[in-house]
């Protein structure tokens, strides 16, 4: 059968692509377990020494902490800004609004290296280089469009009559937003927050431009680890990075499933 063959070919191709996409990331797992002193595949035995090093070294721990602080702060800011933008554009829904939306999505289109240079030029005179605030602001700008996209998708499925009903029943704009709109678009807001966190959590290009000595995020330390020596701790850090990302996604997926109708 022709269709059956085509379908099988399609799904085979999809699996092949999936493996090609995921395999390079998974290479970090065996490498992180190597007993040797440089980046290599373990041959006869496995060792957890680099995980021990990762979780005991003050430098690595401090980088974890910094990445978490910057990631969570920029997530909070980006989620707030992105959600408000999405609701505003949804309410206005005009041609000017669509132009505005295109402008707001620009950070996704601009190559990171260009964005990094722009931030650098802007932040030097402002004294924001090598500061938490500078990185948090930059990551917020980069990740707010992600929130705008996910929240807008949620709003597309939101019945505008619910907003009318709320206002008709006497609720102010603010009450309507807090008690009717936000609960209705929660899955989109949470998805946006997860994407925003991940975007900041493994961001390297802009970080390289904006940090020097005092701010040293996890991706930055990994970058240096690979460049200066071939310390397998980098592989262990990569595995931890992936696990954190996966956990964030899982929390979101579970939360969305709980939101679904119970039947």
């Amino acid at each position, binding site marked *: 059968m022709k269709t059956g063959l085509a379908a099988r070919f399609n799904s085979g191709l999809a699996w092949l692509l999936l493996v090609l996409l995921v395999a390079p990331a998974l290479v970090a797992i065996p490498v992180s377990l190597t007993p040797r002193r440089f980046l290599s595949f373990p041959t006869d035995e496995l060792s957890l020494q680099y995980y021990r090093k990762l979780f005991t070294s003050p430098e690595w721990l401090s980088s974890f902490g910094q990445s978490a602080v910057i990631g969570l702060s920029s997530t909070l800011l980006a989620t707030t800004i992105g959600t408000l933008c999405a609701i505003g554009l949804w309410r206005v829904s005009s041609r000017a609004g669509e132009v505005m939306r295109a402008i707001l999505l620009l950070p996704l289109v601009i190559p990171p290296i260009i964005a990094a240079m722009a931030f650098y030029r802007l932040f030097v005179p402002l004294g924001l280089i090598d500061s938490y605030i500078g990185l948090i602001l930059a990551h917020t700008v980069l990740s707010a469009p992600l929130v705008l996209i996910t929240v807008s998708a949620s709003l597309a499925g939101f*019945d505008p*009559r*619910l907003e*009318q*009903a*709320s*206002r*008709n*029943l*006497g*609720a*102010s704009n603010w*009450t309507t937003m807090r*008690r*009717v709109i936000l*609960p*209705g678009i929660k899955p989109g807001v949470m998805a946006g927050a997860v994407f925003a966190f991940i975007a900041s959590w493994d961001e390297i290009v802009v970080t390289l431009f904006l940090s020097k000595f005092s701010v040293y995020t996890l991706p930055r330390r990994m970058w240096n680890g690979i460049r200066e020596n071939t310390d397998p701790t980098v592989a262990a850090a990569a595995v931890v990075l992936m696990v954190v990302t996966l956990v964030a996604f899982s929390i979101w997926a579970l939360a969305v499933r709980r939101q679904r*109708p119970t*039947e």
Partner: protein
Amino acid sequence: MAGIGNSGSLHLKSLVKRYGGFTAVDNVNLEIERGEFLTLLGPSGSGKTTLLLMMAGFQDITSGDILLDGQSIAAMPAEKRNFGMVFQGYALFPHMTVRDNIAYPLSVRKRPKAEIGAKVDEMLDLVHLTDFGHRFPKELSGGQQQRVALARALCFAPPVLLLDEPLGALDKKLRIEVQAQLKEIHNRVGTTFVFVTHDQEEALSMSDRIVIMNHGRIEQVGTPSELYQHPRTVFAASFLGKSNFLHRKDAVYALRPEKIDLAAAGTGQGANTVSGVVQSVTYFGAMLKYQVQVPELGEIEVDVDAWRGGTPVAEGTTVDLTWANTAAVRLEIEPK
């Protein structure tokens, strides 16, 4: 004032709504009396929903005014108008239980908890949903959701309740049941109801008065029997019930199918008698519907009580049609 609720009068003065070049509502003047059940009836695009949304405050007014108990509310935002509204599709908040939905208008008004609880109990009782307070909207049937929407819209004792095709999503049998419940609730609360529908039976059976709308204008206003017995225009005569139209000289008359008697050829006795040939007979249980071709009038529809008529007259038979002088109503050629 009768009833346990509140009630207000609405006065629409020369209301106009234009979208670019299109006039959705065209110079509507209407007095809605305190406590009445008024229906806006018309086909889709007739402006009835736009008119309702203007009363609710969700559509700006191009020109004209809306008065509530003599005070202009045209510039007042929707949330300040204090009107209840039952939306098409009900617009219940899906993340709130039935109780929380009904309590919403009271809690946004910051009423004390005890008062809210008592009021919600009272409303659940009014709509016969006492045991359903803890359920979510999606766990209810369409008819139950409709009642929750009604309870939510009435619990803050609004002076006016606006209903936008609230029975459209229900199947026919349930709709008749809900019509009776809605009418009963209207009698109990005494609130002014403004009801939008395109269903003429619904309009006839529930309303104190009906406003027939067409192309953004009011075609005719009156009680259901006034409109049915004395339609003024071709549109009113054909949209509310069925009519045969008789063209005589320069006038048009509307003649309801059930007001015509059908008799064997040559036996017709009445002020007006014509003869024609039966084209088709359709059986509807309670009645028989005949299409009769009359040379001077065209095709005439005649309804005969099925139990009265004996054996149906066969197709191709020549018959006499008769009707009383008062049965045919002279229409205005141009509306107003």
